[in-house]
């Protein structure tokens, strides 16, 4: 008897764990993939690094994971940031423009050099991204605009800014060291994964080893109580938006490095949607409060795996969008109290009907 109760309790505890459903979804997706494409699990060691479909998925998911982590914090404070796509484009454009594509002959060998030292380009790109976040944060916290409107402004203007920086062209980047960001491997594992991991660990540390996580959650759950308790909600809100934009900037660097170009128009297109979806899949509610960083990262992986699955099935890319939308939809429906109530009524009514 005791073992049954124990097992039951443990199972319930497992089911109730926040990450349970995201993990299950991911596993199911991978299984579906493996069922018609067993090579997905193949991992080889080639050219000094890991090689395989899983590695690709992880590499592509890293930028999305970064943005999702930033978005998680914004959503936790009851806000939203739909300008991240534009910030991705801006940061990619700045880096590409500063690095340029000059060809130089050096000792008879043609090499590409960078217009400015690469670290400077990277720092500038990230700095400008942070400024974008500061802009958003001030509009929300000081001016008092609704987050969706405030970030809509940057979403509209930001693409234009990105295009201006690239002067309307798609800048191709030739500078080899830059490719390392999105294509390189460190100790056999993609460099982008390292970046995402480092950010995750740093964030985890900052949120759990300092009071930041506690404050963000209180602001999201009950802003009035947080204020009364002495939490400085305005500076924290501004910082959260800055961080989100910074992550978008970093993602922009990774993406442009991966495709070796910066496209002001298309870089980061619709990434805000993917990010919001990743956060929601990971279990964080759009109404703010408790959040799950790990959940958002899992959400990013799920989305990337989903995209990969759809491609490998051979379904046209437009269906990708439809499927994504359907998934958002189902998640939102399940989160809606009215819907759950309606569902319960419907479910409860049916057995009664059959009984008579």
């Amino acid at each position: 008897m005791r073992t049954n109760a124990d097992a039951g309790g443990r199972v319930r505890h497992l089911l109730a764990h926040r990450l349970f459903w995201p993990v299950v979804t991911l596993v199911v997706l991978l299984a579906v993939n493996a069922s018609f494409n067993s090579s997905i699990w193949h991992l080889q060691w080639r050219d000094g690094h890991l090689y395989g479909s899983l590695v690709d998925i992880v590499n592509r998911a890293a930028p999305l994971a970064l943005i999702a982590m930033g978005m998680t914090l914004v959503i936790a404070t009851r806000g939203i940031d739909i300008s991240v796509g534009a910030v991705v484009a801006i940061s990619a454009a700045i880096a590409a423009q500063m690095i340029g594509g000059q060809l130089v002959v050096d000792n008879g060998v043609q090499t590409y050099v960078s217009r400015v030292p690469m670290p400077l380009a990277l720092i500038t790109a990230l700095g400008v991204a942070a400024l974008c976040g500061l802009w958003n944060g001030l509009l929300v916290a000081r001016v008092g605009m609704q987050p969706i409107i405030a970030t809509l402004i940057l979403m509209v203007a930001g693409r234009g800014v990105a295009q201006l920086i690239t002067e309307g062209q798609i800048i191709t980047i030739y500078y080899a060291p830059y490719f390392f960001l999105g294509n390189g491997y460190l100790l056999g594992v993609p460099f982008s994964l390292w970046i995402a991991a480092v950010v995750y660990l740093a964030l985890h540390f900052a949120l759990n080893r300092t009071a930041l996580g506690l404050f963000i959650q209180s602001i999201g759950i009950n802003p009035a109580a947080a204020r009364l308790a002495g939490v400085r909600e305005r500076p924290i809100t501004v910082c959260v938006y800055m961080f989100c934009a910074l992550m978008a900037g970093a993602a922009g660097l990774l993406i442009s490095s991966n495709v070796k170009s910066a496209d002001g128009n298309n870089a980061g297109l619709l990434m805000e949607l993917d990010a919001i979806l990743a956060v929601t899949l990971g279990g964080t509610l759009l109404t703010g409060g408790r959040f799950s960083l790990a959940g958002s990262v899992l959400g990013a992986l799920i989305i990337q795996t989903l995209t990969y699955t759809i491609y490998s099935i051979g379904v046209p890319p437009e269906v990708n969008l439809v499927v994504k939308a359907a998934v958002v939809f189902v998640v939102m429906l399940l989160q809606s109290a009215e819907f759950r109530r309606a569902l319960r009524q419907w479910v409860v009514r049916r057995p009664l009907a059959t009984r008579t």
Partner: protein
Amino acid sequence: MADQAVATGVALPERRLASYLKSNIREYGMLLSLVAIMAFFQIVTDGTLFKPLNLTNLVLQNSYIVIMALGMLLVIVSGHIDLSVGSVAGFIGALAAVLIVRFELNFVLAMAICLLTGAAIGAAQGYFVAFFRIPAFIVTLAGMLVFKGLALAILQGQSIGPFPQSFQLLSSGFIPDQFNGTDLRLTSLFLGIIAAVALMVMDFRLRRNQFEHGMDEEPYSLFIIKNLVFAGAIIFLSYLLASYKGLPNVLVIMFVLMLLYDFGTRRTTIGRRIYALGGNEKAARLSGIKTERLTFYTFINMGVLAALAGLVFAARLNTATPKAGLGFELDVIAACFIGGASAAGGVGKVTGAVIGAFVMGVMNNGMSILGIGIDYQQVIKGLVLLAAVFVDVYNKNK
């Protein structure tokens, strides 16, 4: 005290003028800004702006934005937002192409099907927003994705066209000229004059009605000036258009819709109920207004207008492309906010939204003539939107 009676006809004319202007400053401000911007660009482009050809293009380029702004205004006033309109417009355009070009369906029937589809789309989204209370931006964001994908799917990645002549008339057609004028399309000019006179007559009647019921009306001097200016402007613009190809069909459509929606939002019960809903949902419900149903209807309306805009756009380009509708929603939303709608709901005028759309349109057009890049245009668009919302928030927090 300000709360006490506002004197009618007893106070000095100058004081009345000043106080009237102050209380309606937002409206007149918008209009004056539009006039100022037009004047600015007219000068800066050495008179190209008002050239008949350019004016015609300006109207044609902004038609779909105006059409959608009418619907978006109602959605925003009711306190929600619709991010899917661009994708829906693109999808409907693609649907029309498939029906008309590929299946060779009669274009009137195809248009009817398209409008009904738009209504169905609006109904689906509206149902989730109104009855399940899922935030509108999520539902319509999902809708945006779905219809972008569906458009790609039914077009199979290609562009479909051209459309038959009869369909193209929707966008590129002009009012036929009965008088066979050579340089001047007289019918169009006459229509313009008639419209101007009709508006003046309606305004006079309204003023007389107000006077009979003792309501505060515009100071007489302002009233006369305003009507003369409007009439003059309409006749002038009709003349300019008439000297090119006449009044575009789509302008007539826009005008009719504008009148309809302006009337609806100002003088019908259902229109005013939407404003009550946006102002204070609880109070509206307490007054017996069926708020969920009303929200549902605004989304259906948006769907139909988005479909219409999609048809107009496809007819203008003469093809349906997968990229159609990209970014429309931002233009439309910006137009509404520039025109004075409030993000919190309950505030916004049809005339404002139309003016806002034209402000954006004139800026786009003028900047293109000047050769300013699209990118700068995007930045400036963003800044104008910022200014408009900033003013709104600042006023609210005062």
